[in-house]
């Protein structure tokens, strides 16, 4: 190929992966997770999402009629339909794996929107039935939006609460994990790594 053609072609070909609906965060969420054990089994994962003030104000303006600072049951139901249920198309931004193998996401329960210090908060839970043996089990929870319209704040072990009734020994750490490794420049969301062992 003629030398003249090589440079522009190389530049243009290299740019092809840059095209696409790259995402870019418009909504920011701070996550808190609680793990509830019953006897020696993980019974529930409760998730709490606190939104940035701009998205909060917009949703509150839409659903908190009369600016009471809270949602009535009817308003909460409307909000669930208009500003939550569509997450089923995004796997609710959650990915679970046990012992290194991905597990299906349980149905979302107990969705409740609220307003805390002027910010919008979504609370919901995932019913689980994960028996914990003395040999131990490892659960990994990744919270991420791979379209990156929503950016989740960096997590620390302090964002994970354990209610184990003393029967379970737990160890919580946060690791970075790769998402969609085949794309160049993939981002690496936080992953909660929970090691559990029945005492």
């Amino acid at each position, binding site marked *: 190929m003629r030398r003249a053609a090589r440079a522009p072609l190389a*530049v243009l070909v290299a740019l092809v992966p*840059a095209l696409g609906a790259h995402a870019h965060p418009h909504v920011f969420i701070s996550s808190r997770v609680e793990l509830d054990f019953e006897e020696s089994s993980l019974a529930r994962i409760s998730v709490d999402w606190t939104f940035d003030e701009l*998205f909060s104000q917009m949703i509150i303006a839409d659903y908190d009629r009369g600016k009471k600072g809270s949602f009535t049951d009817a308003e909460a139901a409307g909000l669930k339909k208009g500003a939550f249920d569509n997450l089923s198309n995004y796997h609710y931004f959650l990915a679970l794996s046990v012992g290194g193998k991905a597990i299906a996401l349980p149905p979302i329960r107990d969705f409740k929107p609220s307003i805390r210090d002027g910010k919008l908060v979504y609370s919901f839970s995932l019913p689980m039935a994960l028996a914990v043996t003395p040999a131990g089990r490892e659960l990994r929870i990744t919270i991420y939006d791979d379209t*990156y319209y929503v950016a989740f704040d960096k997590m620390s072990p302090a964002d994970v609460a354990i209610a184990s009734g003393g029967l379970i020994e737990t160890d919580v750490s946060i690791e970075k994990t790769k998402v969609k490794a085949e794309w160049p420049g993939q981002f*690496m969301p936080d992953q909660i790594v929970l090691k559990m062992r029945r005492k």
Partner: protein
Amino acid sequence: MRNPLMSLSRRALIALVVAALRVGLAGAESPNPFTSSGGPARVVAPAAGGIAVLAPFLHSLTDRLAELAREIREARTPGPMLALALASLLYGIFHALGPGHGKTIISTYFLAKAAKLRHSLMAGYLIALVHAVSALTIVLALFFIVRGVFSTGFESASRIVQTLSFGVIALIGATMLAQRIRGKEHSHGHRFGFRKAYEHEHEHEGGSGEVTGKELFGIALASGIVPCPGASAIILVCLSLNVMLAGVVAVTLISLGMGVTVSVIGAVAILVKRGVLKASGSGRGGSSSLARRIVEIAGSAVLFVFGLVFFVAQF
């Protein structure tokens, strides 16, 4: 003879340029997962790692915009309004680094045409103007006329505008591609020698080769018309707090910030094209115009394909 393209500094330069253009060549706006209906856009790639680093800063900035709107409502002193103007400008600049906001369109347009640096300034200004008017119109129409749930209404309106925008871009790209392939400008390479050929080429490059104000406005219209969700949210918040002036200030400054980023990205595209054409052997008459033709045809092709792919993906 050693190929200058293989030298380390050349490679480093190309890598740097590719990185810069990667910021420029981004794609469409993704839908809001909460308030839109349906799944992710069909052509999606995760963000470049760079954006993740900015996330905490963007989070604070986003919070700050809403806080300032509330402060302005409480105490109508100039302080919060000035802070809002600054925060909005920063928000516009940083958000335009993300996808959408017309950068792909501008970059490929400048690759496909013989553009001067001042055209990138014009482009930035025009996109800012179109965006501010579009965002205000759409938000005001949704708030006062449609009056439904704003957040879902906005996603639907945005989707419609985006689809139209891609259709127009595909058409512009197709027209430019056809012109490039037919080859409106001619090279006089060997007959006049380098300097004369360069000057002569410029003289004859009128019509389809050059950027015209009308064409630039069309491009700015097609790309600036899609409203930024953040800009629209702040207008909405200001409307619901009854501080309309703050909303206008915010959206104007956000749009100006976007214009700044688009101008810079456009300027990079123009400079890259110049650099690449020089690197591929300027002064050799025939070769340089082949390189130019390749860049311009590729630029128009990318614009056309980009518009077409995203247009089709909306359905």
